[in-house]
């Protein structure tokens, strides 16, 4: 539809400008503040050059949190994808109580992360919580869920998986429900078994939805901090700290606004680059280009 030049901006601009206006100031502000020494006792936009950036390079806690995030986000999103896909496959077709399962499996994503993380904290409570209690009943030894880095990371992943697998589940189930029947008929006719049908039919057909779902989840997971905040406060030590949480500590709790500005920008750039690369790789790996 050409020849409608005048009208097209009428549609786009309200939204674009709104977002732009809302976003541009924070962005400029952050860029500027990252070159300032703004902190709790000196809340001023002075100019200290790249000092914050130099400091950042030496901040092992920051870099460790980024590495951790990559493993954490990558890991949980993968698990979410696998479970979400698995569950979507199980309640896709005939199954008793299908609607009940579907609703139930959606509910966790509807809950407020900070609030549910508080509930999870009580669940993982080492002496008063049900998890260790159940382990005890099974005759297993109690696990210091939130006080040792291994279990704490596990607990964190559990919460993330619980909260966000439904998101995957929803996208993938909707995807499955919109698949045509014929390819499955064809596979049955060709004599393919369940496994082969999945790998050769279901999975390739679901590839575009999968990529979209994984990318969106990665974007959201990269901000992981609410559950860290409530569940472990980054501890023990700094073993569950994510950039989101570290930025929060530096930028808000300790009010190192300038320094956190520098870290935020770096992080933002890193994330955009990483996610773009990941998206491109996934797209290529699943050969989605040129395929509608």
């Amino acid at each position, binding site marked *: 539809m050409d020849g409608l030049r005048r009208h097209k901006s009428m549609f786009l601009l309200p939204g674009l400008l709104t977002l732009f206006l809302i976003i541009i100031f924070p962005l400029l502000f952050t860029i500027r503040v990252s070159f300032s020494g703004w902190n709790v006792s000196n809340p001023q936009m002075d100019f200290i050059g790249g000092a914050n950036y130099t400091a950042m390079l030496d901040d092992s806690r920051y870099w460790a949190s980024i590495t951790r995030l990559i493993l954490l986000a990558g890991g949980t999103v993968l698990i979410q994808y696998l479970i979400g896909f698995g569950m979507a496959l199980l309640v896709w077709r005939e199954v008793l109580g299908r609607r009940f399962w579907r609703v139930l499996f959606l509910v966790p994503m509807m809950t407020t992360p900070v609030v549910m993380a508080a509930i999870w904290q009580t669940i993982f409570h080492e002496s008063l919580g049900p998890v260790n209690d159940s382990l005890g009943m099974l005759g297993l030894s109690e696990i210091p869920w939130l006080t040792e880095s291994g279990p704490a990371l596990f607990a964190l992943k559990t919460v993330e998986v619980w909260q966000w697998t439904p998101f995957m589940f929803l996208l993938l189930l909707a995807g499955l429900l919109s698949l045509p029947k014929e390819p499955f008929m064809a596979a*049955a006719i060709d*004599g393919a078994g369940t496994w082969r049908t999945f790998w050769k039919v279901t999975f390739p057909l679901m590839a575009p939805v999968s990529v979209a779902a994984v990318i969106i989840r990665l974007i959201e997971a990269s901000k992981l901090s609410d559950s860290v905040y409530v569940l472990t406060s980054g501890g023990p030590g700094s073993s569950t700290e994510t950039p989101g949480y570290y930025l929060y500590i530096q930028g808000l709790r300790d009010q190192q606004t300038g320094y956190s500005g520098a870290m935020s920008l770096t992080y933002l750039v890193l994330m955009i680059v990483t996610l773009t690369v990941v998206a491109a790789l996934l797209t290529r790996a699943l050969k989605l280009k040129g395929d509608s």
Partner: protein
Amino acid sequence: MAQLDIIDVGHTYAPGAEEERWALKPLKLTFESGRTYALVGPSGCGKTTLLNILSGLVRPSRGRVLFDGVDVTALPTKARNIAQVFQFPVIYKSMTVYDNLAFPLQCRRQDKARIDAKVRQVAEALDLHDRLRQPARGLTADDKQLISLGRGLVRDDVAAVLMDEPLTVIDPQLKHSLRRKIREITEQFRPTVIYVTHDQYEAMSFAQELLVMKDGRAVQQGTPEQLFEAPSSTYVGYFIGSPAMNFLTVDRNDGPFTLGGRPLSVAWDIPRRTTEVRVGVRPEYVKVVTDPGPNTFPGRLRGVSDHGAQRVLDIEVAGQPVRAKTPREEGVPVGEEVLVHLPRAKVLPYADGKLVLRS
């Protein structure tokens, strides 16, 4: 290749419905081994239900389906050993053309050399042999349909190839060549083919035998020629042929048939009946003549439609419309008043909408 027998098979999607309202009324049919059949009829006629019963997607409410004498009624699709080409091209997106063709054999765990030989043979026939290494999803819709067909052909043991309106999404210009290709291939491999379509044109040019369906019933089964020359009902007469067969209501008072008061001889004599009798004659056989004679009636020329090489003349004979299809070279009659000749051998008698057979 197998013979498919449909014995007293009927189906309803609403259990408990009376038989009159079934989607497919109980019928008995035989599809002979190695022949091509077309199921043709308007949407909702039951042809898709019948196809689904054959493929095992639908289990009939009644009756049995035999493949080479073996009862497969209860078997699922996978166990029926059929091949199917769907309306929308179905290929395995993640695989190459070669792997697509090899897939059914790989699923059956045949040895590699055998698979390779078979795939190459079929690919050759499909004109896909030079694209075997390409990813299948890059092909055009018509080539994808060929792959679908090919996946059936690589299997030696396939009982029947079912085709469900395979040309629906093919570009009009390519329909012709794809149909031609499919036909050539089926001539070569001679599987039992059951081809479902709503398009008579497709059905007739593709199949050796047609099964015209309507309202869940098989109306007529026969070769294209049979359906053209002797439609068993006014419906088939209307449905097959373009323009449709002319049907004229005739009178019969104690003697021969009359049309507008003039005697009309028909192809054969029929028993006397009280019911309304109509005669059918194909527009191709209606001739505009200059001289009066037997079976020749006066008419009025109402309109001319120029189809190019032919013209279709709309003529009113005894107050009833008659169409005549005339070659262009015969020109258009001058003036409104014309004489129409209905050749006796081509005038068929119908009672209650059914062809009355020669007794």
